[in-house]
């Protein structure tokens, strides 16, 4: 099992969710993060004082899948998330050694 972490633009979440659904992914976990990267940030001004805000709000999508499906997930998510502009984000794949479904106690492939 692998965990695929997709860090990308927030407004792409719905598209990615749809793309993953289409290839049969049934579950995922999403959180709001702040990203620092090449994309740069923006300027904010409060009472004449300028602040450079470096981070950009991004969304992080975590999907745990069987090893065999990792490539599909990467392909589907990349396609849905790509705009071609700096800031499209990254996909990281991490090994997962065990998965448990709390409700049933099932483990392994049966649990995702």
């Amino acid at each position, binding site marked *: 099992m692998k965990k695929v972490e997709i860090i990308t633009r927030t*407004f792409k979440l*719905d598209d990615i969710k749809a793309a993953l659904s289409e290839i049969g992914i049934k579950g995922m976990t999403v959180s709001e993060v702040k990203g620092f990267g090449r994309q740069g940030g*923006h*300027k*904010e001004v409060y009472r004449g004082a300028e602040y450079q805000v470096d981070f950009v709000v991004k969304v992080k999508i975590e999907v745990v899948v069987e090893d065999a499906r990792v490539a599909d997930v990467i392909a589907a998510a990349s396609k849905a998330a790509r705009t071609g502009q700096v800031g499209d984000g990254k996909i990281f794949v991490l090994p997962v050694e065990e998965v448990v479904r709390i409700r049933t106690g099932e483990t392994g492939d049966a649990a995702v």
Partner: protein
Amino acid sequence: MNAADTAFVLISAALVMFMTPGLALFYGGMVRSKNVLATIMQSFILLGLVSIIWAVCGYSLAFGTDQGGIIGSLEYLFLNGVGMEAGPFSETIPHLAFMIFQCMFAVITPALITGAFAERMKFGGFLVFTTLWILVVYAPMAHWVWGKGWMAEMGALDFAGGAVVHMSSAAAALAATVVMGKRKGHGSTAFIPHNLPMTVLGAGILWFGWFGFNAGSALAADGFAANAFVTTHMAAAAAALAWILMEKLHSGKATTLGAASGAVAGLVAITPAAGYVTVMPAIIIGLGGGVFCFLGVLLKGKLGYDDSLDVVGVHGVGGTWGAIATGLFASINKTTGLFYGNPSQLWIQLASVAATWAFCFIASLILFKLVDATVGLRANAEEQDRGMDLSEHNETAYQA
């Protein structure tokens, strides 16, 4: 001159002033959090912009001596001659008090329009449009109805602004949706209100301030003011109930946003009638306001235009219904409507409704096109993605 009336009108003017920040919150709560400041700003800054226009020439255009039924004279330019003594529109209060009471109406009316183009309007274009609109649309409308212009001559009844305030802003709102098109993502993204307690607070302030708006329009602390106060309250109450009842029937649950929206719908509907009807008709007007405005908002979904915060559905439908209902139910303050034996009042009301919509829609459409072609109106897709707060104002509303 009468100190009690003066006190009443001044406090009423303060209450109406407070409605504009109230509207800012009412609207601000309904947009996404990345657009809340820009939305608030479009109301708040009009306290600045329109007030100064009003002092410079707006008041004179609206309330200067009538020029052929069309517009006021320039005699009050820079408020010249508007002083501490009574003016031509009320014998019992200082002319300045009348002027500033009217000023607050001029401020909030264009603020109402902003709901239509929320989340996609550029600030510069907005300021230019509003400046023109006050001079070209609002001042004439105010003159026609309250400044002894042709609508007043015709006998049209508009106690506190069904036509001047609500239909005019709704017609401009409709024109805005035509010229500006939809927000990015309309139809695919969910545009869900980001802070409904803020919206309810705004509605509460609006309701509170509306007592100044409607009862204050009596320009005296008398029985007519008391009557307008009561009709205002009861119409809002009835409309809040009617709206949530419609919701219950339509989707199974009453909502808080529905209660707040309904209250505002009722306040809109009673505005032209408040000083001309008694309490039970006011309740009927409120019920109608709740039902019709709810349906008007639903209609938007069907027709597919993007009036972000339902200016047409609430102020257009509510203002129109109120103007017609005034022709039906008027019975006090030397007026009579259809149900009290005077069918001609209804025709006059219908004529004024048609004229108001036609004039305000066309004039607003031209102004929007003009500003669009010169200064520009619409934020591009990327600006909308970042949010108008950052794109237009370099600010973020909330920090964790």
